[in-house]
């Protein structure tokens, strides 16, 4: 009997994957292990680093076409994104944007194998993923950004948001794509919500076949190198029509407004539902029966100056107002105890919220498209987390968040100044979707203002440490701490406002925030850059907060040929 030997991508290490796909003899690695750019933050926590920090950049040709493959090593720290690995990915994409702007078309391919943010570096991962997302949205305008999710880890966490932004996705049956991993959903929502030990169910929910059959992935391949190459070429030569899913806002929003999740929807039903062509667009959602009174809603009301929300989804407030003489759109995510999605009733960003943010940001872009003065957009950030739930994963909460990220990034690139006001919690995927794409970040110095990637309980579970050990590590590595003062040390904040009452703001507090927003607005107006590079240019970023991120980008530039 003839023996068929397949060249497996799944079974290969990240570096082998990149070289296997590229034409033989054409490729060279940028920032190889011999450059020794490892994570300073893992070493500081006594954790063994890897010489390339688990991110492999290989420049070469594929079928004769200039191609850069960025491949994530899933075996090292679960493919988690830290400062160095994140900067390698973001920095490479940023370099490709500059090359494309010069007319050098180079095709990017990202091979995903990642659990998302590396919890031991926490907020560095968050900042990196925002920068990666921003770069994908900009680069997509020049060349298709191809994502491959072969497995074994799959693509999770914040990195699933970046996968959702890719022009096209190639998956295998073994690959999985979801936002919150099954273990984390269980930790946050309980065993009845999702049993992570039920592997068959997990793959039926978020596996490659399900994502492909639901129209969320473009090509499903058997794990053999020629198949991946064929798939990549079919995207490049236009055989595969790009779906631009994150721009299909009306479709997905009405789909999720009319979904009934009172009883558990099976993966089979979900697949059929996601393939529905006709959806009912006239659905009224139940609003809270009592007045919502959270930090975020209070600030929204103060800044809106009596303007009612125009949003069709009660958990997202949207109003147009005037801030120091400048037209501005406010957006806040708030609790709604009547939310049809029971895992998103406390102000979390869920399926509805992500798509609703996308809708109203895109509406502002559309309304101002012929105007030279683009409306200021102000995300008011008080978000406890993304929604952790069975239905959220089944129906692709990652894509709802990608859609919000895409809308904000597109608004920024089209000239809308965006100033995020951190008045409460700014956590994880919720913050990535709502705030992190802003040109400038302003925060109130208050104990209610926290920036982080995961609850301490879940972070302890995943990294196999105690909560005490996590607190101890946070003293050495500020990116692991939750408080806004530590976040400031990373250099991404435009301003940290002192002496403002965050939880019970009065008109003086409002004036202080408004002044800071105006200051940020003017700073944006005097800056020609519409990307997120100002976060790397601040004094704090340069002197300490983002040293490694800056060095990585400089070295990519030096080694490029």
């Amino acid at each position, binding site marked *: 009997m003839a023996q068929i030997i397949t060249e497996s991508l799944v079974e290969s290490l990240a570096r082998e994957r990149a070289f296997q796909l590229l034409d033989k003899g054409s*490729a060279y690695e940028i920032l190889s292990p011999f450059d020794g750019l490892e994570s300073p933050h893992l070493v500081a926590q006594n954790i063994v680093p890897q010489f390339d920090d688990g991110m492999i950049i290989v420049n070469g040709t594929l079928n004769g076409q200039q191609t850069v493959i960025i491949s994530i090593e899933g075996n090292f720290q679960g493919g988690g994104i830290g400062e160095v690995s994140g900067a390698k990915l973001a920095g490479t994409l940023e370099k490709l944007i500059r090359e494309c702007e010069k007319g050098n078309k180079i095709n990017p391919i990202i091979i995903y194998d990642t659990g998302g943010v590396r919890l031991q570096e926490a907020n560095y991962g968050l900042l990196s993923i925002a920068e990666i997302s921003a770069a994908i949205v900009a680069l997509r305008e020049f060349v298709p950004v191809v994502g491959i999710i072969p497995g074994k880890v799959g693509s999770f966490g914040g990195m699933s948001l970046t996968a959702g932004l890719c022009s096209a996705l190639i998956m295998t049956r073994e690959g999985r794509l979801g936002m919150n991993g099954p273990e984390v959903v269980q930790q946050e929502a309980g065993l009845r919500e999702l049993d992570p030990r039920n592997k068959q169910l997990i793959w039926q929910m978020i596996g490659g076949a399900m994502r492909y059959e639901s129209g969320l992935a473009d090509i499903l391949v058997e794990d053999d190198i020629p198949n991946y190459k064929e798939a990549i070429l079919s995207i490049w030569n236009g055989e595969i029509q790009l779906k631009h899913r994150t721009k299909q806002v009306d479709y997905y929003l009405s789909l999720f407004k009319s979904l009934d999740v009172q009883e558990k929807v099976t993966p089979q039903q979900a697949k059929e539902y996601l393939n529905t062509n006709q959806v009912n667009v006239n659905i009224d959602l139940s609003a809270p029966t009592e007045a919502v009174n959270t930090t975020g809603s209070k600030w929204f009301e103060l800044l809106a100056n009596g303007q009612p929300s125009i949003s069709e989804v009660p958990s997202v407030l949207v109003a147009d107002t005037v801030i120091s003489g400048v037209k501005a759109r406010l957006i806040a995510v708030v609790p709604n105890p009547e939310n049809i999605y029971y895992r998103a009733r406390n102000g979390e960003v869920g399926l509805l919220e992500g798509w609703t943010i996308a809708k109203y940001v895109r509406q502002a872009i559309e309304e101002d498209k012929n105007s030279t003065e683009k409306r200021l957009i102000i995300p008011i950030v008080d978000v406890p987390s993304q929604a952790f739930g069975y239905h959220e994963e089944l129906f692709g909460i990652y894509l709802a968040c990608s859609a919000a990220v895409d809308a904000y990034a597109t608004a920024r690139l089209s000239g809308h100044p965006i100033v995020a006001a951190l008045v409460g919690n700014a956590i994880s995927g919720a913050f990535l979707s709502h705030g992190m794409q802003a040109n400038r970040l302003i925060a109130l110095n208050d104990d209610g203002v926290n920036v982080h990637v995961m609850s301490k309980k879940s972070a302890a579970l995943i990294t196999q440490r105690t909560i005490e050990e996590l607190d101890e590590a946070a003293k050495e590595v500020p990116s692991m701490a939750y408080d806004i003062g530590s976040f400031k040390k990373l250099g991404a904040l435009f301003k940290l406002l002192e002496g403002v009452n965050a939880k019970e703001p009065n008109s003086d507090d409002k004036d202080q925030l408004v002044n800071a927003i105006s200051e940020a607005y003017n700073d944006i107006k005097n800056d020609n850059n519409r990307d997120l590079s100002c976060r790397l240019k601040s004094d704090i970023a340069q002197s300490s907060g983002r040293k490694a991120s800056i060095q990585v980008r400089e070295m990519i530039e030096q080694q490029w040929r």
Partner: protein
Amino acid sequence: MEKLIYSFPASKTVEQPAHVGVVGSGDLEILVEPTDENKTVVEIRTGITGFQDTWKKVIERFVSQNDVSARIRINDFGATPGVVSIRLAQAVEVSTNGTNHN
């Protein structure tokens, strides 16, 4: 994390640098860089503490079989002595025969 350093006399130069392995569960990565100092220097960082004696034996055995003037750096994530020996042999193979990627 524990750091260990061993040094042995050597005479043969290595052809080219080599990198093998991954810092994944039960595995390790090894970086071999040629030197002209006539010694083999092995620098180890391991997440599993308290196994100095085992490491010493594994490295001594490797050096007794391979005469290489090189700086060898190891990042270990709980590899067994067998895996360590195989990876070291692989690293020498790559640096001698040049079967690095591409």
